[in-house]
């Protein structure tokens, strides 16, 4: 049906290029690489985010300053620049033997993970900070006065509550992270966007290849959003996060 809409234009749609050998394998490999880059980066970004997000709220000024410098520095430089930095810049400071070892062990992949984690870690820590700041200060005071140290209060009370408050903005960040992983292509990582471009360059079927890419990202993002939605519902703290149960559907 769609094909008929294109009659009369100088372009000939052939969707089969997407699964013809070896193109189908490229898409699958690309998808797998995208998932790997995103998964590693996500774990590191969340850990960095929790650490620096908490640090930005602690009652010690020097700690807060360190965390602020991290966040402002890393989130305000474009991700593309960070990828170039971690691939072309950072490895150059290591001694030659270590550098060679990196080069032989998937340097492109890990440079991409480093770049994405650190950038999204900075953004994630802002999300977590707002979560922590949404908790009344009296909670910390209550924790400390009941005999816990500040560290324990954060670990046992504040962060667990904050994490449950920030699911919606964290979903946002996670989706951004997944889509930003396509920039890894610029430093030679053969991820999903790379694979669709690869098909385009081999077959000159640009519209088919890019539509496939678009659709796969869309499906990935919608699945993540629905998983996060379920998590949000499961862990919502009654009274702390208002849910519009009925209005949504």
């Amino acid at each position, binding site marked *: 049906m*769609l094909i008929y809409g294109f009659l009369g234009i*100088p372009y*000939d749609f052939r969707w089969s290029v997407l699964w013809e050998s070896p193109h189908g394998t490229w898409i699958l490999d690309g998808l797998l690489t995208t998932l790997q880059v995103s998964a590693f980066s996500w774990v590191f970004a969340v850990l960095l985010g929790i650490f620096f997000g908490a640090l930005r709220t602690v009652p010690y000024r020097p700690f807060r300053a360190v965390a602020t410098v991290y966040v402002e520095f890393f989130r305000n430089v474009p991700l593309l620049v960070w990828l*170039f930095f971690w691939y072309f810049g950072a490895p*150059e400071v290591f001694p030659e033997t270590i550098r060679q070892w990196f080069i032989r062990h998937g340097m492109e992949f890990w440079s991409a993970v480093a770049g994405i984690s650190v950038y999204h870690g900075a953004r994630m820590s802002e999300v977590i900070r707002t979560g922590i700041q949404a908790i009344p200060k009296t909670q910390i005071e209550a924790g400390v006065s009941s005999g816990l140290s500040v560290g324990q209060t954060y670990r046992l009370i504040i962060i667990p509550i904050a994490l449950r408050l920030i699911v919606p903005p964290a979903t946002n960040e996670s989706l951004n992270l997944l889509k930003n992983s396509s920039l890894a292509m*610029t430093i030679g990582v053969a991820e999903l966007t790379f694979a669709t471009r690869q098909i385009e360059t081999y*077959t*000159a079927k640009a519209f088919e290849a890019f539509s496939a890419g678009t659709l796969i990202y*869309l499906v990935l993002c919608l699945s993540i959003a629905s998983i996060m939605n379920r998590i949000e519902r499961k862990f919502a703290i009654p009274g702390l996060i208002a849910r519009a149960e009925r209005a949504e*559907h």
Partner: protein
Amino acid sequence: MKRIGIFLLLVTFLLSFAGISFASEPTLEKIKRTGVFTVGTRSGSPPFAYINKQNEWVGFSIDLARLVHKNIEKKLGKSIKFELKESIPATRIPLLTSMAVDLIAGTMTDTRARRENVDFSLTFFATGAQFLVKKGSPIKGVKDIAGKRIGTQQGSTNERELRTRYPQAVLVVFPDQPSAFTALAQGKLDAYTNDGIQLWGLKYKAPNPDEWEVVGEFYTYDPYGLAMRKNDSDFRHVVNVALMEGLEGGDYFNIYNKWFGPKSEVPYPLSHDVKTFLMMQVVPK
């Protein structure tokens, strides 16, 4: 159920973008109507199309496009504006099909697969893939690349050739030439492969040209052509006549000398065979 419905709605919405019907107005009519001739080209492929130290967008392919421009003006009998637009391998065919540009003049190899979607002019340059290495590298040609990290540019015909015929090499594919060259200069790659003439271009543009060597026999054949929208033979004729008249009248060779002559930045003498081949494409008046 509702969610599936929303999803399907989204998909339809997205696909409808692909369905925006492109006006199939003949190129010459479009140029006459708008008064602009738009050419898609590269900005980092010396000496074919690049931005020079004076910040001007110049090159061999761009000068050939200017020959075409003159012929269009002659044919339409009015003055037409000449405009350049950046087009990388991934975007050049969509740019053509969507009428954003009228001609691709860069370093596009004419291939059978590409001819299914666009039309090509006469071949205006012929080259083949070689390797760029640091002087003294053990890589001397396509036989020495097993287990080596070889950089390529995505979308090039040589990348495809290596992937299918020499799978023992570790391919690292970059979307553009400058980042691949940086990786090579830092020792992250053992060699960088591309069309020989482009490697010469890189070598001469490098801070120390003597550090670099272009090695190996051609392992692919890459005839460059100007690309146009498919099934527009009137326009293609104007383009081809411009090239033929350039070859016949000597303009082509003046342009060649400007970019590849002994005094140019990338000296690359035109071999006898290539010259004969170019001239034999010129059909009688």
